[in-house]
């Protein structure tokens, strides 16, 4: 025999590389896509579906699409795919609504300042975090004056705030204001004090039992009947209040779920340490309860953000309203697909970011209890 067989003492054999078919791209494909008969079937079906859909979708959205055109007729001459000319020409209208053009820098500045304000809240390693919080607490006032004007800035009526800006303003305000309110409601609902508890239960159940649209209708029309004649009360402010209390009721129930998951021993331990109610909540119970509630809370926020498009029904021109009005322009009539796909992309970016952040937070906070 030309080949010699080498022998090793027990325990001295060098480690061999794993079989080729279990590592690298090939191994991943084999393990994840063709691991069992059922997954082979699913893979084949999925690839076939992608083969059916993807080429047409890509052709429509990219390869045959027209990006620069002044009207639908012009688009049709240039290509057979999507007519992104509409989103292109009206991009600023989709984003800013009817906000005066020469003042749009204020919207942009508000957005930048907003990201700076939430940075220390979202990221716990922000330098000078404590001091930075003061700015975060002041931001709502700064943002209000930047958007609406006053204090030497040219005033802008709130009805001019529209497009995606309006969705973001309503969504962000709702989210920021409803979380503390929701936590208080959840604590109130579990309180030992009968009046507080009853009030919280009534509030939560009433708001949760009514569709958001109804609340918006109340905000837009019914309040005019209830208030004394001649009082005007900004429509967007009314909507903000309604959206906030609506989402607070949902947050309250999500947080209550978290509170109930905390073992009784934790409450008792807090009492045994001699902590007062608020101390024990702040230091022991809520940190744990909120951590459990993160997926539910973010879920509510994502839902709330998408629900902001409902304001189109009470005549506020949000991004969907801008789209509707644009589609009625004879120049652009019939481009519903393009408009709704464009709006969907805007929303997807925001909602997906929120979902990813919540995952990051869960991973950061997990203390080994998770399976």
């Amino acid at each position, binding site marked *: 025999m030309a080949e010699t067989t080498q022998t090793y003492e027990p325990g001295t054999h060098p480690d061999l590389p794993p079989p080729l078919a279990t590592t690298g791209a090939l191994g991943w494909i084999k393990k994840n896509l063709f691991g069992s008969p059922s997954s082979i079937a699913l893979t084949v079906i999925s690839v076939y579906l992608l083969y059916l859909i993807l080429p047409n979708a890509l052709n429509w959205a990219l390869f045959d699409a027209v990006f620069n055109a002044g009207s639908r007729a012009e688009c049709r001459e240039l290509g057979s795919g999507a007519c992104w000319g509409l989103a292109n020409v009206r991009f600023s209208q989709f984003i800013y609504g009817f906000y005066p053009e020469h003042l749009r820098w204020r919207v942009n500045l508000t957005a930048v300042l907003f990201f700076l304000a939430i940075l220390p809240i979202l990221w716990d390693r922000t330098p000078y975090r404590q001091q930075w919080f003061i700015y975060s607490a002041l931001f709502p006032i700064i943002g209000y004056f930047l958007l609406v004007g006053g204090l030497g800035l040219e005033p802008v009526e709130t009805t001019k705030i529209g497009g995606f800006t309006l969705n973001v303003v309503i969504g962000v305000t709702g989210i920021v204001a409803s979380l503390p309110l929701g936590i208080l409601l959840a604590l109130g609902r579990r309180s030992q004090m009968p009046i507080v508890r009853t009030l919280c239960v009534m509030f939560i159940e009433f708001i949760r039992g009514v569709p958001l649209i109804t609340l918006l209708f109340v905000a837009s029309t019914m309040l005019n009947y209830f208030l004394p004649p001649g009082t005007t009360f900004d429509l967007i402010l009314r909507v903000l209040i309604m959206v906030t209390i609506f989402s607070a009721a949902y947050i309250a129930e999500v947080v209550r779920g978290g509170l109930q998951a905390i073992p009784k021993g934790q409450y008792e331990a807090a009492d045994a340490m001699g902590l007062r109610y608020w101390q024990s909540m702040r230091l022991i119970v809520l940190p744990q309860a909120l951590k459990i509630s993160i997926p539910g809370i973010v879920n509510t926020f994502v839902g709330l953000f998408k629900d902001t498009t409902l304001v189109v029904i009470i*005549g506020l021109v949000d991004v969907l309203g801008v789209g509707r*009005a*644009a589609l009625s322009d004879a120049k652009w009539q019939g481009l519903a697909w393009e408009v709704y796909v464009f709006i969907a992309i805007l929303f997807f970016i925001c909602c997906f970011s929120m979902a990813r952040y919540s995952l990051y937070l869960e991973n950061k906070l997990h203390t080994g209890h998770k399976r």
Partner: protein
Amino acid sequence: MSKLKVLLAAGALTAVGATGASAGTLDDIRAKGFVQCGVSTGVPGFAFTDDAGNWQGFDPAVCQGVAAAIFGDSSKVKYTPTTGKTRFTALASGEIDMLARNTTWTFSRDVDLGFTFVGVNYYDGQGFMIPKALGVTSAKELDGASVCIQTGTTTELNLADFFRTNNISYEPVPIETNEEARTNYLAGRCDVYTTDASGLAATRAAFDDPAAHIVLPEIISKEPLGPLVRQGDEQWSDIVRWTLNAMINAEEYGVTSANVDQMATGSNNPEVKRLLGTEADLGGMLGLEKNWAHNVIKQVGNYGEVYDRYIGASTPIGLERGINALYTDGGLIYAPPMR
């Protein structure tokens, strides 16, 4: 539905009471410096936003005319987009001063809901559009068809009436907006799309292949569309009414936005002189400036100009004047004299 009606009526009553207590609508408008005008969220040609974000169209033009009559500046209008469901509450609650939103003038809206229709700026009627391939030539052959229909409108009720009187059945496919109807119809989810004939023509004009669809000859309803205001402030309804009438009369007398300055000084026609305020003071009777109608025509145009600009045969909407021609041309558009 009847509960909603009671609610609306109650609301309308409260609102009327409220406005009755405060100063007149005209004074309110002068004080705030603009006309708050309810328009639709979008009907091709009738109301839409242009690329710069301004509301345009056949209906907003009425509001612009009223603003020109009051302030001498047609841009002093603020728009509130309303849907078929919110339009009447918005007007009744005082959120808007007037509604110009292709709204059909009916008995119950005028009497029961407490509104005043000030006139008709477009005579419409409900029609049916079907794909030519269906081979149907009359609406009476539509037994068992699925019909795309906008909810909360008079078209919904007319449709039910028509099919009941002809003893045939249909399957309604409820939709909310014109754009939705268009998409559903083209995707084949309904055999028939029914709405006002103007809307059908406008929608059809924007199809990739308009020739493959026909509008059936039956017009099953009367749909006089016009601007409306709350009941109870006659001065205000007169202003809106006569702004519209001034635009119609201007067309009849041949006054256009181009020649209005010249006509104001050069015309010997006493009707024109009264209209433009060079003779008599019609504006003063309304509580407006003498040259109110002059401003309306100069800045917005006469009825025919507005029609041609937004929905006429030369636009993509392509609506012939038809019954919306002046009575002198065999149409129904007729305004009382300015005297």
